[in-house]
């Protein structure tokens, strides 16, 4: 058993998100909508030594198979993340995250004059650019610190 396996044990069924940049695991959970009140069984490895990345984070969610659509939004903060779908302790599917065209309801617009920051019945919506994201409504482009927009109310 390797040192890494000791830290983050295998799961029976669920999703393993690997190759997350070190320190971003909690943002990954925030994007996936997994908050403090979750009933999901989670294993989180942070700043795990990685040959490829120096250090990386790993998130394991038991009992939930995340769809491609659900995980693609992770590409904004973890472009090299790999998604492993596990059934009965075996990885049955392995895929990369792909950049989605749009991200709905996850990021909050940093422009305080944007209509989505008021009391309106709309979800935030961002178009994903080659570099950064752009608010569908006020058109503000954000390239730096996209994680600051997660769950900001």
């Amino acid at each position, binding site marked *: 058993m390797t040192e890494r396996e000791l830290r983050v044990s295998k799961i029976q069924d669920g999703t393993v998100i690997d190759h997350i940049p070190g320190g971003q695991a909690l943002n990954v959970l925030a994007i996936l909508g997994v908050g403090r009140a979750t009933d999901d069984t989670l294993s989180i490895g942070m700043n795990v030594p990685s040959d490829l990345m120096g250090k990386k984070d790993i998130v394991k969610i038991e009992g939930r198979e995340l769809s491609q659509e659900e995980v693609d939004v992770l590409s904004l903060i973890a472009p090299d993340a790999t998604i492993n779908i596990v059934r009965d302790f075996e990885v049955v599917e392995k895929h990369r995250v792909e950049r989605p065209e749009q991200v709905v309801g996850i990021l909050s617009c940093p422009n305080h004059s944007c*209509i989505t920051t008021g009391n309106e019945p709309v979800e935030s919506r961002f178009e994903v650019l080659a570099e950064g994201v752009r608010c569908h409504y006020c058109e503000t482009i954000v390239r730096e610190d996209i994680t600051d927009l997660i769950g900001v109310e």
Partner: protein
Amino acid sequence: MRHDHLITAKQLSREDIETVLDHAAEIADDPAAYGDRHAGTLLGLLFFEPSTRTKMSFETAMKRLGGDVVDMGSVESSSVKKGESLADTARVIEGYADALVLRHPSQGAAKMVSEFVDVPLLNAGDGAGHHPTQTLLDLYTMRETAGLDGLTVGIMGDLKYGRTVHSLSYALTNFDVQQHFISPKSLQLPRNVRYDLHETGAMVKEHTDLEGILPSLDVLYVTRIQRERFPDENEYRKVAGQYSIGLEALEPAKDDLVVMHPLPRVDEIDPEIDDTHYANYFEQAHNGVPVRMALLDLMLGGEL
């Protein structure tokens, strides 16, 4: 191209723009001929910010087409004061009117409302976002005075928050126009406008003073630098003074330079210019009526 709503100048092709301007010219030649064109049509006015020119010219345009307006009135006297969302207000008023005109302080307001209403919606200004109907009358004025191709246009003032600037700069990319942007560094074009202009391959040059570029301009479009954009009064006065023009400042300009301004002005154009051949800003404001008549006629008729 068929447009359900007019939200941004970016959605307008050269053909769309020329269709509106040509129709505006026909209307300006014989406005009386259009007096019954939209008898019984009601235009809903939703102005969440003060407006004189835009609101009155929309009202005039609708009435000159034989229709009428229903006006939400001031924010203070409306349900907005009770905390009603914009989406709800717009959905209610769409039931009273055949088309809506919206001005709102929040960027993206018109785009959001367009997702909730079925009647044609015209964006009359959304915060620092867009003001496409102003752009159409700006282009009409430019075409009448200087033409619209082979032009060198200088746009000066508050380029960061100036919605008329954003819309005009997008629309000008449809024409053979070289655009020069003149502003203090703190009020340069925002990132999203630069991004869109860059995407179109437009020739965009930025300057911090007018002097060097003035002799090559065919059109100088001046906008107001707003005091509230500056933390301190002295800084505002210093900057505003640098981007205002008088007759003496225009000496190096071409004789046929066209000076435009979306109005209201404060002191960025000295009144001594008003009576010279450079001044086109009052004509520009008057053009709001035939241009908005043309736009309403085309949109209500499903022809734009």
